[in-house]
Protein backbone atom coordinates (compact mmCIF):
# COMPACT_ATOMS: atom_id res chain seq x y z
CA UNK A 1 0.00 0.00 0.00
CA UNK A 2 1.39 3.38 -0.97
CA UNK A 3 0.13 6.68 0.28
CA UNK A 4 1.12 10.00 -1.20
CA UNK A 5 1.64 13.51 -0.03
CA UNK A 6 3.01 16.50 -1.82
CA UNK A 7 4.77 19.63 -0.70
CA UNK A 8 6.42 22.69 -2.11
CA UNK A 9 9.65 24.44 -1.22
CA UNK A 10 9.26 28.19 -1.02
CA UNK A 11 11.21 31.20 0.24
CA UNK A 12 11.00 32.36 3.82
CA UNK A 13 8.31 34.97 4.38
CA UNK A 14 9.27 38.67 4.38
CA UNK A 15 12.70 38.10 2.86
CA UNK A 16 14.18 38.68 -0.56
CA UNK A 17 14.27 34.93 -1.02
CA UNK A 18 16.89 32.68 -2.52
CA UNK A 19 18.24 34.15 -5.73
CA UNK A 20 21.76 34.03 -7.10
CA UNK A 21 22.28 37.66 -6.03
CA UNK A 22 21.07 37.14 -2.45
CA UNK A 23 23.15 33.98 -2.11
CA UNK A 24 26.28 35.78 -3.31
CA UNK A 25 25.50 38.69 -0.98
CA UNK A 26 24.96 36.35 1.94
CA UNK A 27 28.25 34.55 1.32
CA UNK A 28 30.09 37.87 0.99
CA UNK A 29 28.50 39.12 4.22
CA UNK A 30 29.52 35.93 6.04
CA UNK A 31 33.10 36.38 4.90
CA UNK A 32 33.08 40.08 5.78
CA UNK A 33 31.78 39.31 9.27
CA UNK A 34 34.89 37.26 9.94
CA UNK A 35 36.87 40.52 10.04
CA UNK A 36 34.57 41.90 12.75
CA UNK A 37 34.41 39.01 15.17
CA UNK A 38 37.01 36.95 16.95
CA UNK A 39 38.01 33.47 15.90
CA UNK A 40 36.55 32.15 19.14
CA UNK A 41 33.18 33.73 18.35
CA UNK A 42 33.19 32.24 14.85
CA UNK A 43 34.06 28.75 16.06
CA UNK A 44 31.54 28.97 18.92
CA UNK A 45 28.82 30.03 16.49
CA UNK A 46 29.62 27.16 14.13
CA UNK A 47 29.75 24.67 17.02
CA UNK A 48 26.42 25.96 18.25
CA UNK A 49 25.01 25.60 14.72
CA UNK A 50 26.15 21.97 14.45
CA UNK A 51 24.68 21.28 17.90
CA UNK A 52 21.35 22.83 16.88
CA UNK A 53 21.31 20.63 13.77
CA UNK A 54 22.22 17.64 15.93
CA UNK A 55 19.29 18.27 18.27
CA UNK A 56 16.99 18.33 15.26
CA UNK A 57 18.44 15.25 13.59
CA UNK A 58 18.37 13.33 16.89
CA UNK A 59 14.58 13.27 16.57
CA UNK A 60 14.81 11.08 13.47
CA UNK A 61 15.35 7.33 13.53
CA UNK A 62 18.87 7.45 12.06
CA UNK A 63 19.95 10.29 14.32
CA UNK A 64 18.45 8.72 17.43
CA UNK A 65 20.09 5.36 16.73
CA UNK A 66 23.47 6.98 16.11
CA UNK A 67 23.14 8.98 19.29
CA UNK A 68 22.15 5.96 21.36
CA UNK A 69 25.01 3.90 19.96
CA UNK A 70 27.50 6.66 20.76
CA UNK A 71 26.10 7.23 24.25
CA UNK A 72 26.49 3.53 25.09
CA UNK A 73 30.23 3.62 24.47
CA UNK A 74 33.06 5.48 26.17
CA UNK A 75 32.96 7.98 23.29
CA UNK A 76 30.21 9.96 24.98
CA UNK A 77 31.90 9.93 28.40
CA UNK A 78 35.27 11.00 27.03
CA UNK A 79 33.68 13.56 24.75
CA UNK A 80 31.62 15.04 27.58
CA UNK A 81 34.67 15.17 29.84
CA UNK A 82 36.71 17.01 27.20
CA UNK A 83 33.75 19.24 26.40
CA UNK A 84 33.46 20.26 30.08
CA UNK A 85 37.16 20.53 30.89
CA UNK A 86 37.91 22.78 27.93
CA UNK A 87 34.68 24.80 28.39
CA UNK A 88 33.69 24.12 24.77
CA UNK A 89 30.05 23.76 25.71
CA UNK A 90 29.95 27.07 27.58
CA UNK A 91 31.21 29.02 24.56
CA UNK A 92 28.95 27.19 22.14
CA UNK A 93 25.90 27.52 24.38
CA UNK A 94 26.17 31.30 24.57
CA UNK A 95 26.90 31.75 20.85
CA UNK A 96 24.24 32.36 18.24
CA UNK A 97 23.84 29.14 16.23
CA UNK A 98 25.05 29.51 12.68
CA UNK A 99 22.53 28.04 10.18
CA UNK A 100 25.15 25.64 8.83
CA UNK A 101 22.85 23.47 6.72
CA UNK A 102 21.18 26.45 5.03
CA UNK A 103 24.60 27.94 4.35
CA UNK A 104 25.83 24.70 2.78
CA UNK A 105 22.69 24.43 0.64
CA UNK A 106 23.02 28.04 -0.46
CA UNK A 107 26.65 27.55 -1.42
CA UNK A 108 25.80 24.43 -3.42
CA UNK A 109 22.97 26.32 -5.14
CA UNK A 110 25.48 29.00 -6.12
CA UNK A 111 27.61 26.39 -7.87
CA UNK A 112 24.59 25.40 -9.93
CA UNK A 113 23.40 28.90 -10.80
CA UNK A 114 23.37 29.64 -14.52
CA UNK A 115 23.68 33.39 -14.02
CA UNK A 116 26.53 33.38 -11.50
CA UNK A 117 29.11 35.07 -13.76
CA UNK A 118 26.69 37.86 -14.55
CA UNK A 119 25.86 38.34 -10.86
CA UNK A 120 29.52 38.31 -9.82
CA UNK A 121 30.08 41.10 -12.35
CA UNK A 122 27.67 43.25 -10.36
CA UNK A 123 29.67 42.94 -7.11
CA UNK A 124 29.62 44.37 -4.52
CA UNK A 125 26.03 43.43 -3.83
CA UNK A 126 24.65 44.76 -0.53
CA UNK A 127 23.50 42.03 1.78
CA UNK A 128 19.94 41.92 2.97
CA UNK A 129 19.59 44.08 6.07
CA UNK A 130 19.60 42.05 9.28
CA UNK A 131 16.08 41.50 10.52
CA UNK A 132 17.08 42.72 13.99
CA UNK A 133 15.14 39.88 15.54
CA UNK A 134 16.69 38.58 18.71
CA UNK A 135 17.64 34.95 18.11
CA UNK A 136 15.69 32.26 19.95
CA UNK A 137 16.74 31.46 23.50
CA UNK A 138 19.95 29.53 23.77
CA UNK A 139 19.98 25.85 24.44
CA UNK A 140 22.98 24.23 25.95
CA UNK A 141 25.15 22.65 23.28
CA UNK A 142 26.05 19.14 24.36
CA UNK A 143 28.85 17.04 22.94
CA UNK A 144 26.50 14.48 21.39
CA UNK A 145 24.38 17.24 19.83
CA UNK A 146 27.50 18.50 18.12
CA UNK A 147 28.61 15.04 16.93
CA UNK A 148 25.19 14.13 15.51
CA UNK A 149 24.93 17.54 13.85
CA UNK A 150 28.38 17.26 12.37
CA UNK A 151 27.50 13.79 11.06
CA UNK A 152 24.30 15.09 9.42
CA UNK A 153 26.14 18.05 7.94
CA UNK A 154 28.91 15.83 6.56
CA UNK A 155 26.35 13.43 5.11
CA UNK A 156 24.65 16.33 3.36
CA UNK A 157 27.99 17.69 2.09
CA UNK A 158 29.02 14.30 0.67
CA UNK A 159 25.62 13.74 -0.94
CA UNK A 160 25.68 17.24 -2.44
CA UNK A 161 29.14 16.84 -3.92
CA UNK A 162 28.28 13.42 -5.34
CA UNK A 163 25.14 14.84 -6.92
CA UNK A 164 27.17 17.73 -8.36
CA UNK A 165 29.66 15.25 -9.82
CA UNK A 166 26.84 13.26 -11.39
CA UNK A 167 25.78 16.34 -13.34
CA UNK A 168 29.07 16.28 -15.24
CA UNK A 169 29.62 12.55 -15.47
CA UNK A 170 29.64 10.85 -18.84
CA UNK A 171 30.03 7.28 -20.00
CA UNK A 172 33.50 5.99 -19.12
CA UNK A 173 35.99 6.20 -21.96
CA UNK A 174 38.31 3.35 -22.80
CA UNK A 175 41.92 4.33 -23.18
CA UNK A 176 43.74 1.89 -25.43
CA UNK A 177 47.54 2.03 -25.12
CA UNK A 178 47.86 0.15 -28.43
CA UNK A 179 46.05 2.79 -30.44
CA UNK A 180 47.67 4.09 -33.62
CA UNK A 181 50.59 6.35 -32.58
CA UNK A 182 50.70 8.00 -36.02
CA UNK A 183 47.23 9.39 -35.69
CA UNK A 184 47.38 13.18 -36.11
CA UNK A 185 47.01 15.11 -32.86
CA UNK A 186 44.10 17.48 -32.72
CA UNK A 187 43.79 20.68 -30.71
CA UNK A 188 45.60 23.92 -30.30
CA UNK A 189 48.06 22.96 -27.56
CA UNK A 190 50.61 21.29 -29.87
CA UNK A 191 50.45 23.70 -32.76
Amino acid at each position, binding site marked *: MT*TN*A*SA*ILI*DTEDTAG*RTTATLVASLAARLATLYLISGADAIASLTSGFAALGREVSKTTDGAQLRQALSRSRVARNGDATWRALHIGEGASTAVPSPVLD*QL*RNDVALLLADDLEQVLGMMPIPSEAPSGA*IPPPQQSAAFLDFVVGYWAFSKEAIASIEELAKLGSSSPEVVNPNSNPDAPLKGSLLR
Partner: protein
Amino acid sequence: MAKEESPQNPLSDWLRLQTDFQARLADETLRYLRRLQGAAAPVTPGTVLVPEEGSELKANAKPGGAFELALDVKNYQRVHAMAAPALDPMVSSSGITWYPEAEFSPEFSLVAPDESVKFTVRVNVPSVLPPGMYIGALSLRGLRQQVFRISADITGSSATASHSSESKRGPVGNRGVKPKSAKSKKAKKS
Protein backbone atom coordinates in the same frame (compact mmCIF):
# COMPACT_ATOMS: atom_id res chain seq x y z
CA MET B 1 42.54 39.09 58.52
CA ALA B 2 41.94 35.70 60.07
CA LYS B 3 38.54 36.92 61.30
CA GLU B 4 37.59 38.12 57.78
CA GLU B 5 38.27 34.70 56.26
CA SER B 6 36.01 32.98 58.78
CA PRO B 7 32.77 31.74 57.19
CA GLN B 8 30.78 33.29 60.03
CA ASN B 9 32.12 36.74 59.32
CA PRO B 10 29.49 38.94 57.64
CA LEU B 11 32.20 40.66 55.61
CA SER B 12 33.21 37.35 54.12
CA ASP B 13 29.62 36.61 53.14
CA TRP B 14 29.26 40.06 51.63
CA LEU B 15 32.46 39.57 49.63
CA ARG B 16 31.25 36.20 48.35
CA LEU B 17 27.90 37.64 47.35
CA GLN B 18 29.60 40.52 45.54
CA THR B 19 31.89 38.12 43.66
CA ASP B 20 28.97 35.90 42.68
CA PHE B 21 27.01 38.95 41.56
CA GLN B 22 29.89 40.27 39.45
CA ALA B 23 30.44 36.86 37.86
CA ARG B 24 26.74 36.50 37.08
CA LEU B 25 26.58 40.03 35.69
CA ALA B 26 29.55 39.39 33.41
CA ASP B 27 27.97 36.13 32.23
CA GLU B 28 24.58 37.73 31.52
CA THR B 29 26.21 40.71 29.79
CA LEU B 30 28.14 38.34 27.55
CA ARG B 31 24.94 36.44 26.72
CA TYR B 32 23.14 39.69 25.95
CA LEU B 33 25.94 40.93 23.71
CA ARG B 34 26.03 37.59 21.88
CA ARG B 35 22.29 37.80 21.29
CA LEU B 36 22.66 41.35 20.02
CA GLN B 37 25.39 40.14 17.71
CA GLY B 38 22.94 37.50 16.47
CA ALA B 39 20.36 40.16 15.71
CA ALA B 40 22.90 41.93 13.53
CA ALA B 41 24.22 38.76 11.92
CA PRO B 42 24.11 38.49 8.13
CA VAL B 43 20.87 37.05 6.82
CA THR B 44 21.02 33.54 5.39
CA PRO B 45 18.24 32.98 2.87
CA GLY B 46 16.33 29.88 3.84
CA THR B 47 13.68 27.48 2.63
CA VAL B 48 10.23 26.64 3.95
CA LEU B 49 8.41 23.39 3.30
CA VAL B 50 4.68 23.79 2.81
CA PRO B 51 2.36 20.77 2.41
CA GLU B 52 0.10 20.91 -0.62
CA GLU B 53 -2.00 17.78 -0.58
CA GLY B 54 -2.36 15.88 2.61
CA SER B 55 -0.06 16.24 5.54
CA GLU B 56 -0.96 12.80 6.89
CA LEU B 57 0.24 9.54 5.43
CA LYS B 58 -1.67 6.37 6.24
CA ALA B 59 -0.38 2.89 5.82
CA ASN B 60 -1.47 -0.66 6.49
CA ALA B 61 0.81 -3.62 6.87
CA LYS B 62 1.29 -6.95 8.58
CA PRO B 63 4.21 -7.79 10.83
CA GLY B 64 6.97 -9.05 8.57
CA GLY B 65 5.55 -7.10 5.62
CA ALA B 66 6.26 -3.64 4.29
CA PHE B 67 4.53 -0.47 3.25
CA GLU B 68 5.48 2.42 1.00
CA LEU B 69 5.06 6.13 1.37
CA ALA B 70 5.57 8.70 -1.35
CA LEU B 71 6.30 12.39 -1.09
CA ASP B 72 6.34 14.74 -4.07
CA VAL B 73 8.40 17.85 -3.51
CA LYS B 74 8.35 20.76 -5.94
CA ASN B 75 10.86 23.59 -5.79
CA TYR B 76 9.23 26.99 -6.22
CA GLN B 77 12.44 28.84 -5.45
CA ARG B 78 14.60 30.54 -8.07
CA VAL B 79 17.70 28.51 -7.33
CA HIS B 80 18.40 24.85 -6.62
CA ALA B 81 17.12 23.37 -3.39
CA MET B 82 18.18 20.21 -1.61
CA ALA B 83 15.98 17.62 0.03
CA ALA B 84 16.68 14.49 2.03
CA PRO B 85 13.83 12.56 3.67
CA ALA B 86 14.02 11.14 7.17
CA LEU B 87 11.70 9.08 9.36
CA ASP B 88 11.03 9.60 13.04
CA PRO B 89 10.68 6.68 15.44
CA MET B 90 7.11 5.36 15.54
CA VAL B 91 5.21 4.96 18.76
CA SER B 92 2.11 2.87 19.42
CA SER B 93 -0.68 3.72 21.83
CA SER B 94 0.60 1.02 24.16
CA GLY B 95 3.95 2.79 24.38
CA ILE B 96 6.02 0.58 22.11
CA THR B 97 8.70 2.51 20.23
CA TRP B 98 9.61 1.20 16.80
CA TYR B 99 12.71 2.49 15.02
CA PRO B 100 11.68 1.72 11.44
CA GLU B 101 14.17 0.33 8.99
CA ALA B 102 13.46 2.21 5.76
CA GLU B 103 14.80 2.46 2.24
CA PHE B 104 14.65 5.92 0.73
CA SER B 105 14.66 6.38 -3.02
CA PRO B 106 16.39 8.73 -3.62
CA GLU B 107 18.14 9.33 -0.31
CA PHE B 108 19.08 12.87 -1.33
CA SER B 109 18.17 15.05 -4.23
CA LEU B 110 19.07 18.37 -5.77
CA VAL B 111 15.84 19.95 -6.96
CA ALA B 112 16.15 22.45 -9.78
CA PRO B 113 13.84 25.49 -9.86
CA ASP B 114 10.29 24.56 -10.93
CA GLU B 115 11.15 20.88 -10.89
CA SER B 116 9.75 18.10 -8.74
CA VAL B 117 11.21 15.05 -7.16
CA LYS B 118 9.33 12.07 -5.86
CA PHE B 119 10.70 10.42 -2.74
CA THR B 120 9.61 6.86 -2.11
CA VAL B 121 10.05 5.43 1.36
CA ARG B 122 9.75 1.69 1.79
CA VAL B 123 9.35 0.71 5.42
CA ASN B 124 9.97 -2.88 6.45
CA VAL B 125 7.84 -4.00 9.35
CA PRO B 126 9.65 -6.36 11.73
CA SER B 127 7.95 -9.71 12.13
CA VAL B 128 8.17 -9.33 15.92
CA LEU B 129 6.32 -6.02 15.95
CA PRO B 130 3.16 -6.25 18.06
CA PRO B 131 0.02 -5.19 16.17
CA GLY B 132 -1.33 -1.73 16.83
CA MET B 133 -1.56 1.78 15.44
CA TYR B 134 1.88 3.35 15.19
CA ILE B 135 2.31 7.09 14.84
CA GLY B 136 5.46 8.67 13.45
CA ALA B 137 6.56 11.39 11.08
CA LEU B 138 8.26 11.86 7.75
CA SER B 139 10.33 14.99 7.42
CA LEU B 140 12.97 16.56 5.23
CA ARG B 141 16.36 17.15 6.83
CA GLY B 142 16.73 20.72 8.02
CA LEU B 143 13.05 21.50 7.37
CA ARG B 144 11.47 20.10 10.48
CA GLN B 145 9.14 23.05 10.93
CA GLN B 146 6.79 20.95 8.80
CA VAL B 147 6.52 17.18 9.18
CA PHE B 148 4.14 14.67 7.63
CA ARG B 149 2.36 12.56 10.21
CA ILE B 150 2.41 8.83 9.51
CA SER B 151 -0.17 6.47 10.97
CA ALA B 152 0.65 2.87 10.28
CA ASP B 153 -1.94 0.29 11.18
CA ILE B 154 -0.11 -2.94 11.86
CA THR B 155 -2.65 -5.70 11.91
CA GLY B 156 -2.67 -9.47 11.79
CA SER B 157 0.06 -11.78 12.82
CA SER B 158 3.04 -13.28 11.14
CA ALA B 159 4.66 -16.66 11.46
CA THR B 160 6.83 -15.33 14.26
CA ALA B 161 3.94 -13.80 16.20
CA SER B 162 4.90 -15.85 19.24
CA HIS B 163 7.79 -13.44 19.72
CA SER B 164 5.45 -10.49 20.20
CA SER B 165 5.23 -10.82 23.97
CA GLU B 166 9.02 -10.84 24.15
CA SER B 167 9.33 -7.72 22.03
CA LYS B 168 7.10 -5.70 24.38
CA ARG B 169 10.02 -5.46 26.77
CA GLY B 170 11.76 -2.74 24.83
CA PRO B 171 12.04 -0.77 21.62
CA VAL B 172 11.75 -2.83 18.45
CA GLY B 173 14.48 -2.54 15.87
CA ASN B 174 16.67 -0.53 18.19
CA ARG B 175 19.46 -3.02 18.47
CA GLY B 176 22.28 -1.07 16.94
CA VAL B 177 22.93 1.39 14.17
CA LYS B 178 23.54 -1.19 11.49
CA PRO B 179 20.37 -2.88 10.34
CA LYS B 180 22.33 -5.97 9.29
CA SER B 181 23.33 -6.75 12.87
CA ALA B 182 19.73 -6.37 13.95
CA LYS B 183 18.70 -8.85 11.28
CA SER B 184 21.31 -11.36 12.30
CA LYS B 185 20.18 -11.13 15.92
CA LYS B 186 16.61 -11.80 14.87
CA ALA B 187 17.77 -14.77 12.82
CA LYS B 188 19.65 -16.16 15.78
CA LYS B 189 16.57 -15.79 18.00
CA SER B 190 14.30 -17.59 15.54
